[in-house]
């Protein structure tokens, strides 16, 4: 069996620490190696702008020098900041008893970096929002969807500060990605045995929901995992979020972005809405 590797993407945001702790927890329960990843992005947006609006000789060359100097200085700064963050995370992981911990720093966007690591990674841990969106009360980072869509590995999305997860909800609707999610939990040994798993199916017709639950139970009967199941009737998003609240769910697992981007643009993505409406962390399976 190949060794499994968890890739945790960290930056200097508030959620960064929580991502580190979640990643350590996941690496412990799944006995995986752990890699902390930090990317240095270039915003291509200059902070020093001149609005004098006149054309001067050799303007292009001057501007090019100016912009590249600025980028170099910024990169240097981010490079050293990132190293500190990575070293701290590594130290924390080693203190928690993990031995196979590595760090990686690279230039470029997060989706690019993840796409390159896809072959090695078995699970990716991400914060729901990064440094650029820290002040914002609600919402998700601008790169989150692009990052998730860039890879086909499961993604763990951290939305809150770390507390040991106790209850996980698995939203099952029979779609190919949710079947994958089911198998991932039943066979993957990624989630610690200490976590209660609630498999929930919501349909407008209760009979359909019950059928789905039977299917799900079949899958789990092969593994030695104990689960509780629940068939519910109602509007999917509302029912799932209220179930999360009533049962104090810590992590929601579901299939993600099964539709293309075009569908999401016109109809709104269900996954994005779930991510927005819920307070739990997420394990998304593609």
């Amino acid at each position, binding site marked *: 069996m190949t060794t499994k590797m968890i890739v945790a993407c960290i930056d200097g945001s508030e959620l960064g620490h929580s991502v580190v702790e979640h990643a350590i927890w996941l690496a412990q329960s799944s006995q995986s190696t752990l890699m902390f990843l930090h990317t240095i992005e270039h915003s291509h947006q200059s902070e020093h702008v001149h609005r004098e609006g*006149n*054309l001067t000789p050799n303007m292009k060359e001057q501007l090019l020098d100016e*912009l590249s100097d600025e980028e170099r200085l910024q990169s240097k700064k981010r490079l050293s900041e990132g190293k500190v963050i990575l070293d701290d995370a590594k130290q924390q992981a080693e203190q928690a008893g993990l031995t196979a911990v590595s760090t990686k720093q690279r230039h470029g966007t997060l989706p690019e970096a993840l796409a390159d690591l896809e072959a090695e990674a078995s699970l990716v841990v991400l914060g729901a929002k990064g440094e650029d969106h820290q002040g914002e009360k609600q919402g998700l980072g601008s790169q989150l*969807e692009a990052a998730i869509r860039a890879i086909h590995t499961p993604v763990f999305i951290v939305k809150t500060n770390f507390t040991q997860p106790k209850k996980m909800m698995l939203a099952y609707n029979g779609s190919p990605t949710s079947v994958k999610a089911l198998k991932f939990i039943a066979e993957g040994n990624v989630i610690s045995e200490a976590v209660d798993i609630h498999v929930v199916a919501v349909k407008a017709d209760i009979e359909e929901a019950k059928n789905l639950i039977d299917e799900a139970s079949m899958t789990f009967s092969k593994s030695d995992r104990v689960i509780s199941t629940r068939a519910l009737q109602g509007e999917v998003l509302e029912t799932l979020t209220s179930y999360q609240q009533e049962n104090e769910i810590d992590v929601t697992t579901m299939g993600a972005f099964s539709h293309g981007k075009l569908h999401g643009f016109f109809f709104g993505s269900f996954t994005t809405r779930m991510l927005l409406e819920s307070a739990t962390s997420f394990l998304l399976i593609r």
Partner: protein
Amino acid sequence: MLLSAKQDWLGNIRGDILAGIVVAIALVPEAIAFSIIAGVDPKIGLYASFAIAVIIAITGGRAGMISAATAATALLMVTLVKDYGLQYLLAATVLAGVFQIIAGYLNLHKFMSFISKSVMTGFLNALAILIFMAQVPELMNVTWHMYALTAAGLGIIYLFPYVPVVGKILPSPLVNIIALTALVYYMGIDVRSIGDMGALPDTLPVFLWPDVPFNMETLWIVMPYSISIAVVGLLESLLTANVIDELTDTESDKKRECKGQGLANIGSGLIGGMAGCAMIGQSIINVKSGGRGRLSAMTAGVVLLILVVFLSDLLKIVPMAALVAVMIMVSIGTFNWASIKELKTNPTSASVVMVATVIIIHRFNYAKCRGTYLCKII
């Protein structure tokens, strides 16, 4: 794709809008001056700049690039306007747009890589010289006032940015225009003003089909002009796209740019504007002013229209000297000064090609983009 579209439009709202305003202010005198070069009323260039800037914001392949009425295309139209009049120019503009769309579908942008850097440099240097030469008639047989005002205008354009604080906020070409207009107005100096050069826009543009007979004869008159406009327009646009790619360290969609330029010219021709293309100088100004997204070109076009429609009475009294100063600045900014220094260090063949391109474009009165032919031979 849709995510990146959103990023292109809304990724840099504040920077784009502010840069768009700076560009709009700089576009007004240029559009007027290029109309004068082409021999049409200033409103033709202003409507064109509005239409092209707005359409290319949506259809272009290079976010942050500014397109409008340009000297490169204006210089090609001179004889058409002189011999046949405005309506034929509008027809030629629409047809040039059609050719550019076809060029886009035929992937002709890929041939850009065959054009050597020396030819490109020669092309720009020739353009700079032609823009400068186009200003000379304005400076012939005039009183000393004109020279003094033009010199003052140039002084303001290049020195005002050194004024602390305001120098970096107010576009100096605008300061030049306001200062010279105020001076001429209050001192009652008798010099030519923009109002003397033809009609300025006083209404929003309306959709018009070019008033030409639809027959083969018209097509044969218009076609040579359309082809040269299409070729030169694409050449300058793709060249500018490369410059912006380099400056912002991002990529652009050249095929989409070709088709976008075509649509923009068709749109321009149909609202009574002349043909245009991407502007190197304005695009660099845009990037320098913090513009990166499509919103900057859109803002530039819309603000330009608002400025000219509502301020046309004020624009009329702007002295030509202020405009000539702006155009000399454009000429100085377009010329590649480093290329003179490089004449010593570059291989002789490259230098010969560069200088030959300049001379050929001049000799043939810029009739066609001979530079590209020359390059193919070499």
